[in-house]
């Protein structure tokens, strides 16, 4: 392919002998500095620093493992304790029954809780009928009516 006649080989030699300076050392330094600025990190240095990172992490693991386990147990304890609270009614649904009467009116059909409120309110103790201004205070006891009748019977 390159079987040139002698006169063309002479031209080729003339071209090869032509003086031409190569790049200077300063140019080399400038170019390689620009190249190193473009490269984000040196992968060789990155590879060499890898075992050091692993050493630091292994030391940290032994210390932090206990803390992590403790933290996990604390979270589990809080979570287990919080679950039953979910089954309780919301505060807005809790009605405050301040008096025994109000509570009794709310539950008239419950035989074990129903009190004979009207009879209890109108019934006047014998002492009051005899002229005492201040009747004896009856105990406000929420109790089944049979138990109350027993009490009245005893009275």
């Amino acid at each position, binding site marked *: 392919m390159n079987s040139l006649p002698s006169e063309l080989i002479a031209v080729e030699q003339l071209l090869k002998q032509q003086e031409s300076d190569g*790049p200077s050392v300063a140019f080399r330094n400038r170019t390689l500095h*620009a190249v190193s600025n473009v490269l984000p990190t040196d992968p060789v240095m990155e590879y060499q620093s890898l075992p050091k990172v692993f050493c630091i992490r292994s030391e940290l693991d032994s210390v932090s493992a206990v803390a992590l386990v403790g933290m996990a147990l604390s979270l589990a304890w809080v979570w287990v304790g919080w679950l039953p609270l979910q089954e309780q009614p919301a505060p807005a649904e809790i009605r405050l029954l301040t008096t025994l009467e109000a509570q009794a009116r709310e539950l008239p059909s419950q035989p074990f809780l129903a009190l004979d409120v009207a009879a209890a309110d109108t019934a006047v103790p014998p002492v009051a009928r005899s002229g005492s201004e201040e009747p004896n205070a009856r105990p406000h006891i929420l109790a089944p009516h049979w138990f109350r009748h027993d009490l009245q019977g005893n009275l």
Partner: protein
Amino acid sequence: MADPLAQSLAAGATTAFAELYDRLAARLVKTARRMGCHTTETEDIVHDLFVTMARSRANFAAVDNLDAYVFSALRHAVARHQQRRRLEHAVHSRVAEKALQRDGGAASSCPSADESLALALASLPLEQREVVALKIDGGLTFAEIGEVTGISPNTAASRYRYALEKLRVLLIDTCVKVGENAP
């Protein structure tokens, strides 16, 4: 088979780029200069070429012929540079041809061999000049030149031969005695 240096370059190793520079930089500078760039322009082109290659270093992973790849990048860089100053280059070529035609037989007005060679090269068509530069200064084979320029190896060899023949005629016309330095 892929060049192992290409794999290191793709990985972004600074030492690999230094090795690539030491392997090709001198040839790149001379080739760019032979293609018609001035000295300062040539250094800028090669400098920017290395920075660009470092930025797009991932492309090295798929490179089979590293030399051909880098010289191909150089060729594109030179072409872009010369496109910017195409008018100036055209004027330079016309001046070179006139200088070669002027007083060709007068011994007293003969330019030096280097000047005559530079003027003769400047008068070559761009396709022939870049083949001469890649062959003489780049040290590439015709197969690699074909890979760089996108032509067949036979076409590259033909362009090289035509370029040498034209140079010989031009140098004879400018009183350079071709063959006196030949072995």
